[in-house]
């Protein structure tokens, strides 16, 4: 086991669908009751109704939607770059001695760098605009994607490769015909791990450097003492996370019907 062994996505029914939601309703009721009674300072916890109204207003004014699109654009483009580079490199690391020799130590050293700490560096190198954020997301999500691609390409069943060889597949076609499809589930797992990471990086960058987006909108609420904005943005982020996670899982099921 080395540091770069990313575990499978561990989850259970517990996160796939709660058996009961009475506790949530209880919490919401309690939230509303306590805040309306003025038992807690408005700034710390405004009533949920106020938060929802704020959320509605931000949505109608277009601010929330614009911020969401901005954040998603940054996260997705970064993720796209990381996927386009990370998957082939990861597979080559596993199948090609030279590429493996070159990249293995780089991954060992590069992977543990807390990617968030590079935000000030990227601000220096690429400024505080979109490009800087997209590149950082790309760099940050490259590691889990490449490592998962590498590990699953390494784990390809030797008998499958031999099967293809005996049926006449030439050596140079093996990667395409056997390694890639057999590694596909693991590769997709890497992307599933990288998706929340891309948002994690984008949010912090937006909070530190500004330039719009959900992270900026959320922290702005704190700085301008409009906590309803912070809460409303957080709920929006939660919804987005929920939808993205579900979508990716649906895509996985569709793509990997055979697995």
């Amino acid at each position: 086991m080395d540091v770069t062994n990313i575990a499978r996505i561990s989850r259970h029914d517990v996160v796939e669908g709660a058996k009961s939601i009475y506790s949530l309703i209880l919490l919401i009721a309690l939230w509303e009751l306590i805040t309306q009674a003025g038992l807690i300072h408005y700034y710390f916890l405004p009533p949920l109704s106020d938060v929802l109204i704020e959320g509605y207003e931000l949505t109608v004014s277009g601010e929330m939607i614009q911020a969401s699109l901005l954040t998603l654009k940054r996260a997705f483009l970064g993720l796209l770059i990381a996927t386009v580079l990370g998957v082939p490199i990861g597979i080559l690391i596993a199948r090609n001695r030279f590429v493996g020799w070159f990249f293995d130590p780089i991954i060992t050293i590069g992977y543990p760098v807390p990617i968030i700490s590079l935000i000030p560096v990227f601000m220096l190198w690429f400024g505080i605009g979109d490009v800087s954020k997209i590149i950082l997301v790309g760099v940050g999500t490259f590691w889990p994607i490449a490592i998962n691609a590498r590990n699953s390409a390494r784990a390809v069943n030797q008998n499958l490769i031999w099967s293809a060889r005996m049926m006449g597949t030439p050596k140079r076609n093996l990667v395409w015909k056997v390694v890639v499809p057999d590694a596909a589930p693991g590769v997709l797992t890497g992307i599933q791990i990288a998706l929340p990471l891309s948002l994690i990086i984008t949010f912090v960058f937006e909070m530190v450097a500004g330039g719009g987006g959900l992270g900026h909108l959320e922290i702005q609420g704190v700085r301008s003492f409009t906590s309803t904005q912070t809460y409303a943005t957080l709920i929006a982020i939660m919804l987005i996370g929920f939808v993205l996670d579900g979508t990716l899982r649906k895509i996985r099921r569709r793509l990997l019907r055979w697995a």
Partner: protein
Amino acid sequence: MSYLHSEKAGIVSTGVRHVGDVVVRWLPLLIVTGLWELASGWVVVETVLPPPLDVLIIAVDLVVSGQIVGDLLVSLWRIIWGLSLAIGVGVVLGVTMARVDPIEDFFGVFMSLIYPLPKTALVPLAVLWLGSGSGTAILVVFLACLLPIVLNSYNAAESVDQNLVWSAKMMGTSDRDMFRRVVVPAAIPEIITGIRQAVPIAFVALVSAELIAANRGIGYRILSYGQLGIYESMLAVIVVISLAAYVGVRGFERIERRVLVWT
């Protein structure tokens, strides 16, 4: 890593080969650093991309001179607190959720709500409640690490081999003791896996919180060196924190192996 991996050498001749293997293995890193060294000053201005050797020297200096030790200790303090709280709460919550249905019914919905939330979105909330400082950082680390630990503990306790429980019962373990004497020990390996997954997350959460709302700590130091334009020091601090993260993760793996000799 298998084919370039060399074993610990006992005899002299293999010892020499061992050194050779190590050099060959880490050569790519040397190449990259060399390119960086070349690029610095030639392709990119030295202030923007300081040479790696300078950065390394400053990194050592920052630690040895004690300039950064205060921040390092503060950050370490925060991460240990946040992680310990997450372990304490997470293991208990996960295991009881798995074994006690009403508890699962109560907390399950919150877990599924928090699960897809990118955890750094919680930083502003922590700032809102606790302002800037250690409390915020600890809270963020705690919240970010909680879920992997809860989920792994839950899975672990949920999937305890029923035969173990039965054989313990057969040998006279009471239902009251079952939890402490069978379920928890059987679940420990997976619980530890959850904690291992949480360690790198803890570092990300810590640095996020410190970049956004802190006036001490490693993350704060990186940002302030950047704002002051002392870029060598900024990079040097990043080297230090990366090293700390690396040691943290590796160290935990070692502890894991030590503790779990029986698996």
